[in-house]
């Protein structure tokens, strides 16, 4: 597919095509398969008890103790508006963004796939405003479609909401 697409502002903010190729860790959320850049993954740990933190948005499940460090855990299913439940194979992927570590709860971890640029397509623009700007693209491998998350955006976007919520709660 050649890049003859008109440069809309949404497309302009996408990561440059050549930067998307690489290895992705894929996992399942509510039946859908997602992927995130393997270089950003610190580790994968089993589900453990998450301490709830009051007055945080619903998608912040709480915090856990990661070898002496307290890190927050996000539930992407809640963030994406899906049903949230603890599956038997649920686990936590620890992601390292710049100098911040966060964990995300996923239903099941799948595999690591290497995707070439040709395997990745831009997500279609859905008319009904579905949030596709959180995706780097849509990858195809092994006959299955994997939604590649721009994990920085996903977790950063929630920070902004976070701050807004907690400051308004504070001011109340």
């Amino acid at each position, binding site marked *: 597919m050649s890049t003859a697409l008109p440069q809309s502002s949404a497309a302009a903010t996408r990561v440059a095509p050549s930067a998307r190729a690489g290895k992705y860790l894929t996992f399942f959320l509510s039946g859908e398969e997602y992927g995130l850049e393997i270089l950003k993954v610190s580790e994968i740990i089993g589900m453990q*008890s998450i301490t709830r*933190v009051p007055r945080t948005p619903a998608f912040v499940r709480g915090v856990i103790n990661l*070898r002496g460090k307290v890190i927050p855990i996000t539930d992407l299913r809640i963030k994406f508006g899906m049903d949230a439940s603890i599956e038997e194979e649920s686990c936590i992927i620890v992601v390292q963004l710049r100098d911040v570590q966060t964990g995300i709860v996923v239903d099941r971890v799948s595999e690591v796939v290497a995707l070439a640029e040709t395997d990745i397509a831009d997500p279609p623009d859905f008319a009904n405003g579905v949030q596709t700007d959180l995706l780097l693209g849509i990858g195809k491998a092994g006959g299955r479609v994997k939604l590649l998350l721009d994990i920085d955006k996903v977790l950063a976007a929630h920070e902004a909401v976070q701050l807004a919520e907690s400051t308004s709660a*504070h001011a109340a």
Partner: protein
Amino acid sequence: MIPTSLNDIVALLMQLEVTDIGDLSVLQNALLILAFENRASTAEQPHVARAARLLGTIIDGSSKNTIADLDAVSAALDQALNSSTNATEPPPPPPRAAREKSRSKAPAKSGTKTPPKSCASEAPPIAGESLPHDTDVSLLRDFLTEAAEYIAASEVALLTLEANPREPEAVNTVFRAFHTVKGTAAFLGLAHIAEFAHEAESLLMRLRDRQIHYGPACADLALRSVDILKALLGAVEDALVGDGALLHPPGYHSLMIALDGYNPAVDFESQEDAPTINAAPRVARVESAAEATIRVRTDRLDRLINMVGELVIAQTMIAGDPYMANSLTPDLTRKVTHAGKIVRELQELSMSMRMVPMRATFQKLARVVRDTASKVGKTVQFTTDGEDVEIDRNLVDILADPLVHMVRNAVDHGIEPSDDRDRAGKSRTGSVRLSAYHSSGNVVVDLIDDGAGLQRDRIVSKAIEKGLIESDRGLTDNEVFNLIFAPGFSTAEKVTDISGRGVGLDVVRRNLEVIRGRLEITSTPGAGTTFSLRLPLTLAVTDGMLVRVGTERFVIPLTQIHMSFRPEPAMLSTVVGQGEMVLLRGALMPIVRLHRTFSVRGAIENPLAALLVIVGDGAQRTALMVDELLGQQQVVAKPLGDALGRIPGFSGGAILGDGCVGLILDVRETMSLTTPLLKLAS
């Protein structure tokens, strides 16, 4: 025979054999004597020093290309010779000592300038220079660190001198500082720093030899010299990380000229009219050699402290393991407990390594007071108390800026002009006092001035004008005063370039938020204002009380807890059907239902079946309602993670004995989270 003049040395260089180490050593020795025993003029010195250094590399074999280096040596000596023949002095360049004598023989009476120095007679370069190509970066960095220490000591000494002009140790301290910096700078090829230090040193030498008096102009020059030296060093640092270009800081040339033309006669006369600005803090004499210390890289120290923290956690987890509780071998328990004791002591020790006394901050502030006071033409006496109080190194940095702003503000706006003070029956000299002490797990820093005080009404009207509040109904004095920290707020009638623009205090508030500090302000119009900064002592192993509310567990810092009890019906009452209160020993306190504040499910809702934990300081005591007390635990406080930001109500998370995270309650914030409800009620 050791050659003594530069010409002799150059002659020797022409003759010697490149391979003869003995000859080279003699040469190097001669160069070193020339450079460092004040026998070369300042223009020559850096070149001579450089030549000496290069020779050193040839001699000890570390030179990579002896021929090239030898060429460089003779080039350097050429430069030295050229610089001296360009001077207005007769060749051969007279030894430094002789020139000094001719200066000092011209006492105050003559009052005119001595022959201008070579650097001032040539047109000073407008652009700067650059770092020498062969600079040894690590040597340079060490130099910068050491020089910074010397400068800090100099400042203190100079301020002491203002209060006590005949204090000999102080003059020596400053003189030594400039002298050492000069020498090392020359060695490293930093010519302009060496030249500058030399000028300043000359002035200080006259002071030290009691040829001149420490008058106000002299004091000004001395302090300006320290400032310029700081700037020069800063330029070197910039050059190190940048492209090597060294810029002369503004004021450099004018100060050089001023230093050169300093006329003590004029200064001495004006001394009688000058107001005495007494800004020397009541400080113990600057220790000259005292404690044995060692330099440690801060990142290593931080890693050490982190590891010790994790050790504490690991040990707590071992000790808290169910197997330990059920263990039938008391031996094992004893050993684990013993290990625990050692670990805790290790923890305390490592924490103390990060603590620094407030002294350095106070000294910096003394300078700020002096400069601000003289700038606005007021006389202020600055006293300090509690320099030995220690706080975490990280806190010091964040605290410095707010304190500087607040102190400037106090001098500029707080203290009234001398005439006003006279009319109000106060002494003409204002007083600003800084006091640091520990109080219930916090470090408190009080800034007290005896100035005009804060006018509540003016603040309120200004705040209303700026739309910050609608009315001041129900606001305590402290809350009104805290409004002055809002961005853009200022009731100053005149905007000076120091303050009044409404910018400074906003910085204060933001910085304080970062370190979770609290600011309390009390003021009496006409009498003065007190700013009280309360800072939590970061981290450390806190003793906490683990409590359960429903399905969740929280940690309440033990220092905040007064007592806990199960209430009886007679003690409880409600206000306007909404706020609940409990009466204990004559004190009425509001009840905070933690399960409501934090939306916890499954908690006990009947106060008679729950426990009330009394927390808080002084008049603001509150009763927190919990389900049960789970026991005391030493916890290591951890920040909640940057991704979460600050969660109101909690100061951090703690790793509990079973490995889970327990949230540590910030008592004050928890109380303020529920106050709105109570306010409605009252």
